[in-house]
């Protein structure tokens, strides 16, 4: 039996729980998260109303900033990490995100094509 390696399987972390830190370190994490979130929010509101950037880039920028801010919230407020004790939480999140992207992306894609292929409303009314 001496060729066997002993590994201790640590328990998972509950979603929202952090590894053992002192109170000061934990508060600092929330402060950093709040600062980043405020910065991203301010950028979003600034970008939405500005004339300084190429206008078609604004929707893309807003979506990227929103996703970045959701990431900040997940990491600093919900404490979702890539560590091995978080695997279950990350897998559940990944599945949730898959469904979200299928629903939103699929709906927008299909409905845009339906709109493009439909005759204008007054023509439909005349066909009836």
């Amino acid at each position, binding site marked *: 039996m001496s060729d066997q390696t002993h590994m201790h399987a640590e328990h998972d972390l509950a979603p929202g729980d952090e590894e053992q830190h002192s109170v000061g370190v934990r508060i600092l994490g929330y402060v950093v998260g709040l600062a980043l979130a405020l910065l991203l929010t301010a950028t979003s509101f600034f970008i939405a109303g500005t004339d300084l950037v190429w206008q078609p880039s604004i929707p893309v920028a807003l979506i990227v900033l929103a996703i970045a801010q959701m990431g900040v919230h997940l990491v600093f407020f*919900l404490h979702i990490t890539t560590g091995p004790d978080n695997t279950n939480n990350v897998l559940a999140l990944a599945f949730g995100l898959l469904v979200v992207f299928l629903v939103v992306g699929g709906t*927008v894609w299909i409905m845009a094509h339906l709109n493009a292929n439909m005759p204008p409303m007054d023509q439909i009314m005349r066909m009836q």
Partner: protein
Amino acid sequence: MSMTATAGRARADPHHIGVVIEHPGPASKRIVTAYGFWVFLLSDIVMFSCFFAAYAVLSGQTAGGPKGSEIFEQGNVAIETVCLLLSSFTCGMASIAADVRNRFWFYLGMAVTCVLGVIFLVIEFREFADLVARGYGPSRSAFLTAFFSLVGCHGLHVTAGVLWLLTMMAQVFAKGFRADVLRRMMCFALFWHALDIIWVGVFSVVYLLGSGV
């Protein structure tokens, strides 16, 4: 070497790969509870994604009614956003205080969270009441239906969160920082942070993107 598990119940090497993993047994109730609530939150987010998809499709269908850029007030939305962000922060402070069993900071953090949540709800309610009074209620156009259902659904969640928050303060007051109360507090913190994540989507997609349409 016998095939039976003679190594004891705490050790297992079922595939004989030479690695013995010491299983610590079933997960604690805190982990199971929080994980179950996490799965609920994700399904809640999936439900919100349907409202988001409906809004994205219907945001241009104004039926001669107002467009988003004509009814959205960015100043109000900015105040609402800051309120929710700060309340997420104070909720985090309250959960740290609960972990170290400090009643004063727990009550203070929860009270500030409650006040910020109520300010958010008041601003949102006044916005809705103002729109309805001007004749731009949810029955005016498909765009307004999608707007009221998405933002109103988030507002209902925040209302439920505020009620839950008051319940948690009362439970800590009556029962102290018991293990079951701390589990509920952890679920509440998850819920409140998740609401803030959804609000990020709401203000980006509905108010900022919608006012450009």
